[in-house]
């Protein structure tokens, strides 16, 4: 191929620039706001921050202390942010773990053991995505109540995996189905049990797909607003998402933006570290058709 002319390079470059700006601008904007002092929030340039400060972040961790009078209480509400942080960690990690274990087991069953009608099992599990979540939380609340999980993080550990499972099972069963039989058979011939063949050979091989499933689950879990705010009622049991939803727009703007960033930045960093693995895993599960 001949070297590309200068205008093609320029076009490519400007498209790339456009894509970067489009993708990153909202993230940048929210980060800038959270670093502002109240003065700069009102009088400054919206796109840059002259005197970055971390006071909005610090304020999130301050407990209710020394508020004077009614106005003080109304203006300076405080939140158990540390509890929210811990709860969020527990819910995120727990949901990813539950989803991975359940979907690896189901994926192996459908892709490898292939019980009668396995293709329809796969499709049926995937088809649960057609159920609109909208008012499902009303009966779901009854289920949660019947299991005595209301106002408990365990309720989210039940609901979140059910939202991520269908796609993960789809991916993993597709991947297991396409693994050459010989890989496992060789181990079985040498006298290994099915379980040890799975844990010693298949599971280590599947790391990219496991990463992809894990990141997908994290994306689902982190994108929920509704379930968390409906099921977690008392402030100390809330996750960051549910808690930020209770902020008052007019009074806590900067604090809320700081809270948004405090959750978003770690989640983004984790996802960014695994981003290439995510693509590799998706690719591995999609070889030979989706």
């Amino acid at each position, binding site marked *: 191929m001949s070297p590309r002319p200068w205008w093609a390079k320029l076009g490519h470059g400007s*498209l790339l620039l456009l*894509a*970067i700006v*489009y993708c990153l601008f*909202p*993230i940048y904007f*929210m980060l800038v*706001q959270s670093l502002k002092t109240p003065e700069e*929030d*009102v*009088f400054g*340039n*919206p796109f840059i921050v002259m005197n970055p400060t971390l006071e909005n972040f610090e304020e999130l961790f301050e407990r209710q202390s020394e508020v004077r009078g009614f106005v003080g209480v109304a203006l300076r509400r405080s939140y158990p942010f540390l509890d929210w942080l811990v709860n969020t960690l527990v819910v995120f990690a727990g949901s990813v773990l539950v989803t991975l274990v359940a979907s690896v087991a*189901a994926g*192996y*069953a*459908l892709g490898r*053991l292939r*019980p009668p009608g396995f*293709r329809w*099992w*796969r*499709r049926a599990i995937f088809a649960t*995505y*057609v*159920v*609109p979540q*909208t*008012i*499902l939380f*009303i*009966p779901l609340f009854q*289920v949660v109540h019947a299991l005595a999980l209301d106002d408990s993080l365990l309720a989210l550990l039940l609901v979140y*995996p*059910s939202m991520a*499972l269908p796609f993960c099972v789809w991916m993993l069963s597709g991947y297991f189905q396409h693994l050459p039989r010989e890989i496992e058979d060789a181990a*079985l011939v040498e006298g290994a049990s099915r379980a040890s063949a799975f844990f010693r050979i298949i599971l280590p091989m599947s790391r990219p797909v496991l990463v992809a499933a894990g990141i997908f689950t994290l*994306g689902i879990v*982190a994108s929920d*607003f509704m379930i968390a705010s409906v099921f977690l009622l008392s402030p100390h049991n809330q996750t*960051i*998402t549910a808690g*930020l*939803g209770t902020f008052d*727009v007019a009074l806590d*703007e900067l604090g*809320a*933006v700081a809270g*948004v960033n405090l*959750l*978003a930045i770690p989640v*983004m960093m984790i*996802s960014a570290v695994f*981003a*290439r693995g*995510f693509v590799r895993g998706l*690719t591995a599960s*999609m070889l*030979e*058709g989706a």
Partner: protein
Amino acid sequence: MGRARDTRLAYLLLAPALLLLLTALAYPIGWEVWTSFTDLSPLKDATAHVGLTNYSRLLAGADFWQAAFVTVGYAVVTSVAKLALGLSFALLLVRPFRGRVFVFLAVFLPWAYPAGVSVIGWYWTLNPPTTTSYAPFMGHLKYVVDGTFGTGAWAFVSVILFNIWRGSSFIGVLLLAGINAVPPELFECALLESKSPWRRFWMVTVPLLKPFLALAVFLSLTSAFADLANVWMLTAGRIVFPIIGTQAYFLAIKAGQYGPASALSLTLVPVLLGILLVLFRVFDPPRQETA
């Protein structure tokens, strides 16, 4: 190793996933179907079966058709935009160039940015509290849009923008993974066949990516239809352009009419199921058993 033993093990391994799905979905769906035939309401003591009344009243009302119309429009507009942008991202990133990994990360981040909180950030960016320095500009934009298309248009536009921003990122990454799964020889052959990139795109790239595009369409549609929380957050509950999800929510929570609300949200199921069954043929074609 008997086949029967394999099958038993398979069911055993399926159990945790099925149990989770059944607990979280089976009862709620059953409840929703049952409720849609009743006039169940938290505001009343007695509940009566009303047959298909909820459905017939729904289909006769103008509200439903307006919501359905807006929902379909919303789903189509966002899906087309997400596919177009996502495909552009994927094609931009296919060939190696210097700094590709950074562009890739940039494309990946909108999806990785937790939507549960980014929607809060978006809401406050697009509808800022009046004290912030960018509030006048945003307010002006809001009045222009609202004045042209009617009150509430700006909020609806915000929801669309947010949905596209996040969805195009996921679809871009999904399609990039899809392109990687297609043997590169197929693209190289195409290079010899036709000189026009436009023709190559429609005759080769799109057909080769069809399964992945279909998967992307479905995931985009379900998220668009079910996207209640985003609409809720971004419009702070002041729904002027109702989509089916928000209308059902209002019927259930504000009006306490569980029956009609259930019927309303169930109207989406046959539509989505039909779309899924068509799409399955594309992204899950029946293929020969590998021995």
